[in-house]
């Protein structure tokens, strides 16, 4: 299917009443759960994974994409009204957004982030529609050796390049890879890393790990640092943006979206870098008249730009996920495992073997975007009310759903022990600044990388040099090496020059 016939087919499918219903439900649930402080899109989708037992693949993925976009939007509401960002991508939004809210401009801040999300989401989805098939063309030329190198690159960028320290990132990645190794080796049937526990033979469920890290670990950490007292939710006030606000927002929206999307597409995914860059760019580009507002009363450019960058990057992450089967964010990793639970393997063949599903999915991304902007502006009062759920009951409720997400699937107390055990490790990871996403990515991508490695070695008949003699493979590996040592070499050179 080419792009246009694919889109035409997809829209035809996505506009059916059932699929529209799934999209609407996804947007609503995603926003509602995303608004809750501390809950991001990854945990939301993880908790909704049990749906895959009951619903058709198309319906479930339309729902997940609605949740994905909705949770992103909900996260910005929390950042603005409560100054507690639910995920790394909205930290920058909280910077200016919360200041605007404190000065009685919460309404325009929410409005500009809603429309900015829509603009960026649409640009991002356009990018997926047109870039996806091109990447697929290229990806079909890759063999297992190239795939393995690509996964190595992905490991390096998500763990060592992003975040505070390469060592801590690699430790997180290693932890995830170890969890991924647990269970029966698919090729030889040998049990690995099971410590003789029968329940571990099937491996550890990704939902369990995601819930342990994002729900249990987070709650434990919050209890560790808990201080009595109530958090203040800012009033929304007047929602509409003035003509001046519109004029000031359009540029940042477009710049943010164009900046964010490429970052999402690259294996060096993540939303932190593009949001940060967008913030600095807007602070530089703002008209002198408004420069004062940055960091004081809150500048609308500082909300519009990063929020658009955040959404465009999140959409961009879907490109490597759908076309290469490479998840570069925790959310994408969990969506990948949802595909696997339907027996579908994302990758270049997805566009041909599951063309209907892919194009319906892409079409419903456009629809979800429109739904969100229509749904969220009138409902902003409702979302603000969700924020008023008192903390004690909120966290107690989150842990109830954590139990359902694990015990509810397996009925095994061993899984609950694992959930709490990994949760405690995640609490310490929070305290000592170990990034969380590499754990989830390592656990999902690890087994796939091992399989690619073995296939490559079988094809080359045990010749290890295959990774260095195939030109594309060696290029990707060099890129990975550069990403790993480049930043360190750079600081070394810079220090020399200073000295």
């Amino acid at each position: 299917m080419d792009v246009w016939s694919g889109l035409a087919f997809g829209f035809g499918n996505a506009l059916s009443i059932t699929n529209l219903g799934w999209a609407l439900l996804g947007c609503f649930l995603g926003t509602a759960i995303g608004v809750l402080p501390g809950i991001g899109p990854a945990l939301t989708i993880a908790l909704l994974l049990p749906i895959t037992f009951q619903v058709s693949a198309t319906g479930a993925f339309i729902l997940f994409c609605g949740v994905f976009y909705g949770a992103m939007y909900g996260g910005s509401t929390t950042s603005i009204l409560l100054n507690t960002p639910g995920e790394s991508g909205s930290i920058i939004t909280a910077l200016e957004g919360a200041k605007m809210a404190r000065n009685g401009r919460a309404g325009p801040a929410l409005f500009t982030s809603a429309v900015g999300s829509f603009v960026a989401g649409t640009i991002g989805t356009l990018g997926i529609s047109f870039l996806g098939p091109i990447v697929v063309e290229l990806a079909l030329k890759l063999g297992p050796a190239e795939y393995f190198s690509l996964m190595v690159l992905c490991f390096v960028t998500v763990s060592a390049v992003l975040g505070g320290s390469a060592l801590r990132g690699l430790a997180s990645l290693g932890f995830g890879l170890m969890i991924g190794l647990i269970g029966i080796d698919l090729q030889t049937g040998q049990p690995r890393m099971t410590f003789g526990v029968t329940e571990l033979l099937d491996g550890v469920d990704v939902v369990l790990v995601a819930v342990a890290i994002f729900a249990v670990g987070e709650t434990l950490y919050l209890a560790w640092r808990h201080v009595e007292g109530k958090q203040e939710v800012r009033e929304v006030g007047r929602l509409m943006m003035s003509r001046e606000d519109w004029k000031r927002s359009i540029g940042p929206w477009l710049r943010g979206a164009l900046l964010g999307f490429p970052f999402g597409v690259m294996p060096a995914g993540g939303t932190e870098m593009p949001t940060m860059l967008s913030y600095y760019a807007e602070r530089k580009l703002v008209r002198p008249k408004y420069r004062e507002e940055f960091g004081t009363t809150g500048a609308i450019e500082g909300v519009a730009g990063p929020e658009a960058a955040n959404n465009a990057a999140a959409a961009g992450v879907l490109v490597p996920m759908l076309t290469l089967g490479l998840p570069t964010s925790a959310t994408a990793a969990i969506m990948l495992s949802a595909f696997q639970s339907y027996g579908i393997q994302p990758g270049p063949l997805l566009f041909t073997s599951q063309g209907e599903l892919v194009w319906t999915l892409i079409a419903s991304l456009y629809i979800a975007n429109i739904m969100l902007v229509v749904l969220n502006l009138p409902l902003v009062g409702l979302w603000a009310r969700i924020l008023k759920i008192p903390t004690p009951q909120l966290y107690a409720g989150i842990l109830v759903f954590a139990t359902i997400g694990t015990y509810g699937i397996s009925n095994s107390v061993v899984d609950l022990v694992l959930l709490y055990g990994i949760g405690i490790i995640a609490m310490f990871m929070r305290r000592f600044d170990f990034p969380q996403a590499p754990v989830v990515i390592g656990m999902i991508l690890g087994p796939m990388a091992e399989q690619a490695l073995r296939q490559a070695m079988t094809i080359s008949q045990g010749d290890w040099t295959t990774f260095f003699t195939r030109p594309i493979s060696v290029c990707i590996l060099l890129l990975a090496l550069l990403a790993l040592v480049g930043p360190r070499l750079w600081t070394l050179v810079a220090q020399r020059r200073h000295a």
Partner: protein
Amino acid sequence: MVRVKPGAGPDLAVGLFVVLLGLICLWQAAIIPVTPLYAQVGPKFTPYLVGGMVTVVGLGLTGVALRGGWSKDLEEMADAPPTNWRALGLLGAGLLVNLLLIDSLGFVFAATAQFVLVAAAFGSRRPGRDLLIGLAVTLGAFLAFDKLLGVDIGAGILEGIL
């Protein structure tokens, strides 16, 4: 004798824990039985690789900790409130109660008990009200998942009746 710089003790413990994790991985890799099946890359290779990497990274972290650690540079640690033992204790008790009761009493009762304890951990002073809210939340969740989605959340006293 190496002297640990003040404040770097916790970082050192973390570094050593990561080393331990890597060693456990290497140990588990070593005891994987050798397979008679033919494979270019056997089942032991990846566990050895991962275990080795984690051990090396752990040694690196230990080295950083011995040179003063990284916690002192964390922004979040600079103005972090002290450890809240009461909250952590109540929360831990909640998790433990859920773990011990869920097989015998079933999801609804075990999760409700957990709900009350966790709410108390975060400063709620009205356990009676929390009990009712918890019951409503767990019952609602049970009915939604069990009846609507067909997710079997185990058997218990109440679950058997419903």
